[in-house]
């Protein structure tokens, strides 16, 4: 294959020698990877740190941290652009990303086993924060430390959007902060404005009111919109289905889907606890009461007018269905606006989609005497520090947490891949204010009115339940709701089955 000169100057190498060298090199590389690649490195310079503000950022220069995160836009954007942080601090950060259930498993094993392979964790409020709260460092300890760099805007509640710090940072008591808000996914309604305008007259002729979304649009009206589209389709018209729910295999999103509807009708919550702080001993659940049974039945009826593959579609797949132009409405998390507005991948792009708050409760459906609200829930992804790590690693990790949640970093992410800011000050930036109207270079900003001005504000905001058994709770909800929706049990049977299992979960 290769031409070999007759009198080569180099010494030939025997096959045995070649294999020996190869084996040696492979062993050395493997051992090197284990020794260096997978381990953290910490380099500390406390005396230098006290010399200036700049030195506070650089006191752990030469250190290496590992951040385990969900595959969300901020993590992608930060991972691809870590140079400013490295230049500022000299700290190397390895960001590992994966689907949320996988992140939950990995960090869970790391935390539970007393290890600190991941110094920084993506602390999604319920699936990760609620079960593992005890394993995270109290960030207020570092926030009050003048030997560490701090964000000029601070990290108190006022710096973040309403409820955000409590959602991901306070678990079961107000004494500790285990995470700073890093990103967020807040529910709002995406709908095909072009189709709504096209069929508005027909709809009005049938129902006596306009086919449009406003903050006062109710869940009953959403059902009527969806039924109208289905009827058109069955009549042979080339229209998409009206609506689809969140099911699929990730249980949390189904729990959130029905929770929005329940909360909208009298601010119903799962347990009689402080919804924002959560509880380790939540007591008996409210599932099985009149409100839950009634709304479960409405949820089942809603499923009948949904896209036929309703049960297969989790949140991501549902968004794909909407992108493909197969449904006219979805209640979806605002981080997906960027993908909807991408003309290369979405048939709903190009100004066809409008955004509104989550539907409001229908007054005639309220059974508990509470108010009708635009029940809106979310996942607030925090950034937390593994308390198993050494003190110096925790301090170095805090420096990254401060930088990653700063206004400038969040603004850069929003400009880049479509971030979801958690700091209020990002919305005050003139470019961001301008981006809230079309045409825009920051598509997620089109949702900001529905999300930040209405959805996350009380009385519309619902968070919980923050309980240690959150993940098992979500799975119980998913299973029983799907059984109900697929006709295997009635709404009442579903609610009672949930109650029985959830109370059993809490040894009641």
């Amino acid at each position, binding site marked *: 294959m290769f031409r070999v000169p007759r009198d080569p100057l180099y010494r030939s190498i025997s096959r045995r020698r070649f294999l020996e060298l190869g084996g040696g090199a492979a062993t050395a590389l493997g051992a090197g990877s284990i020794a260096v690649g997978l381990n953290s490195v910490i380099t500390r310079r406390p005396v230098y740190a006290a010399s200036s503000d700049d030195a506070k950022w650089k006191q752990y220069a030469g250190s290496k941290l590992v951040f385990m995160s969900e595959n969300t836009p901020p993590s992608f954007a930060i991972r691809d652009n870590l140079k400013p942080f490295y230049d500022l601090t000299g700290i190397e950060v390895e960001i590992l990303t994966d689907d949320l259930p996988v992140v939950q498993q990995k960090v869970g094993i790391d935390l539970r086993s007393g290890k600190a392979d991941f110094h920084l964790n993506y602390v999604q409020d319920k699936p990760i924060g609620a079960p593992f709260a005890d394993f995270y460092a109290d960030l207020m300890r570092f926030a009050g430390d003048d030997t560490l760099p701090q964000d000029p805007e601070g990290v108190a509640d006022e710096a973040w959007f309403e409820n955000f710090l409590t959602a991901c940072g306070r678990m079961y008591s107000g004494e500790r902060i285990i995470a700073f808000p890093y990103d967020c996914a807040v529910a709002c309604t995406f709908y095909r404005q072009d189709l709504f305008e096209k069929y508005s007259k027909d709809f009005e002729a049938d129902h006596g009111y306009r086919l449009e979304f406003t903050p006062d649009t109710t869940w009953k009206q959403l059902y009527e919109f969806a039924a109208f589209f289905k009827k058109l389709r069955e009549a042979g018209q080339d229209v998409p289905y009206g609506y689809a729910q969140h099911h699929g*295999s990730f249980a949390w999103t189904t729990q959130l889907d029905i929770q929005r509807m329940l909360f909208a009708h009298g601010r119903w919550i799962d347990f009689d606890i402080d919804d924002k702080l959560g509880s380790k001993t939540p007591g008996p659940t409210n599932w099985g009461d009149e409100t839950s049974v009634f709304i479960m039945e409405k949820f089942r009826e809603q499923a009948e007018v949904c896209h036929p593959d309703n*049960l297969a579609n989790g949140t991501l797949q549902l968004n794909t269905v909407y992108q493909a132009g197969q449904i006219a409405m979805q209640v979806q998390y605002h981080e997906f606006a960027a993908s909807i507005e991408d003309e290369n991948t979405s048939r709903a792009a190009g100004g066809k989609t409008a955004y509104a708050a989550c539907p409001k409760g229908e007054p005639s459906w309220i059974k508990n005497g509470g108010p009708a609200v635009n029940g809106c829930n979310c996942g607030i992804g925090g950034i937390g520090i593994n308390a198993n790590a050494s003190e110096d690693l925790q301090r170095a990790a805090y420096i990254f947490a401060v930088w990653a949640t700063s206004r400038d970093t969040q603004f850069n992410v929003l400009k880049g891949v479509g971030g979801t800011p958690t700091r209020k000050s990002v919305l005050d930036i003139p470019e961001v204010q301008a981006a809230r109207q079309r045409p825009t270079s920051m598509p997620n900003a089109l949702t900001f009115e529905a999300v930040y001005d209405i959805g996350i504000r009380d009385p519309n905001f619902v968070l919980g339940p923050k309980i240690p058994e959150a993940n098992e709770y979500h799975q119980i909800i998913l299973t029983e709701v799907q059984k109900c929706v697929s006709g295997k049990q009635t709404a009442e049977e579903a609610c009672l089955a949930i109650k029985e299992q959830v109370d059993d979960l809490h040894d009641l």
Partner: protein
Amino acid sequence: MAARTGGRFDLGRAATADAAAAVLPVRHVAGVRTIDYAPARLNPQPSRSYYFWMMAPAIVVLAAISLYPFFWLVWMSLHNVEVGAGPDTFVGFANFERLFTRDRKFWNGWSLLLQYSAMCLSLQIVLGVLLAVILNGSRYEKILVTVILMPMMMAPVIAGLVWYYLYNSTFGWYHWLLQSAGILGETSIVGSTSTAMLGLVIVDVWQWTPLITLITLAGMKRVPRDQLEANMVDGAGELRNFFAIVLPNLYPFLLIAILLRFMDNFRFIDVALTLTGGGPADATNILPVYLFDVSFQYFKLGRGAAIALTLLLVTILLGMLLVRLFEGPQSRRADMGSEG
């Protein structure tokens, strides 16, 4: 004590020492040179500790990778090992009591696992043997075997993801194909409680039937030609030949195939997790998936260990039963052979 009989006697060693050991009591019986016994100094019986130290490395490795985790599993199943930072508390058989008396998903998981295994095994055996019969001795056997082995080379997680996309009702090619043929409606195969399990079985059959084919093909090469020819002389056709000669000869090979696949199915998780996650409505929540959820989603490690122990026990028992089932025809044939 020296070995007196040829069975335990190290003849090789004695032969090499032949010249030097003039002391060996050599006799000549009917012209054949024999040795009655060897002195202990030439063929000493090793002490018990010698055997122990020879086996020690294997025992240590086995203990590290198998016995230690097993006893740890038993320990966990008797304790409350949860997600919290608190100590693990001894709860006796409470984890098992919960499983057997209150846990609906546990029983549902068993029922689904048995259904799943039965469907996969029967389809794979029938299709695998059929494919082997077709391929055996065909002109393009080697090429075709290589081609049909390809699914096996794929990691199960990747297979799950590939089929996830193929089944998808929005952009899945198989869904489109089946919908165009009028077999499926707008609901994908994994989107309905009545067809989701079938979706999983199809993936398993697609990926692992080639293994049965491969093992069966190997077995078919060992079928004695003289038996086949004798049967044909007696007027048997191809079909009778297959059932009377080929199939009985394939029993040991099929036993290996079935055992491998049965144990694989009992720890099957990859495709189910990527394709359905156990849903919809628990329709595919087979026991290994539930075990994974309990252990690594809910972090109830004590409860998870109890489920794992029951799974292990049943796997061992069913494995023994299968071996016995297949040993029946084997030993019957052996008996017939010795009688003949």
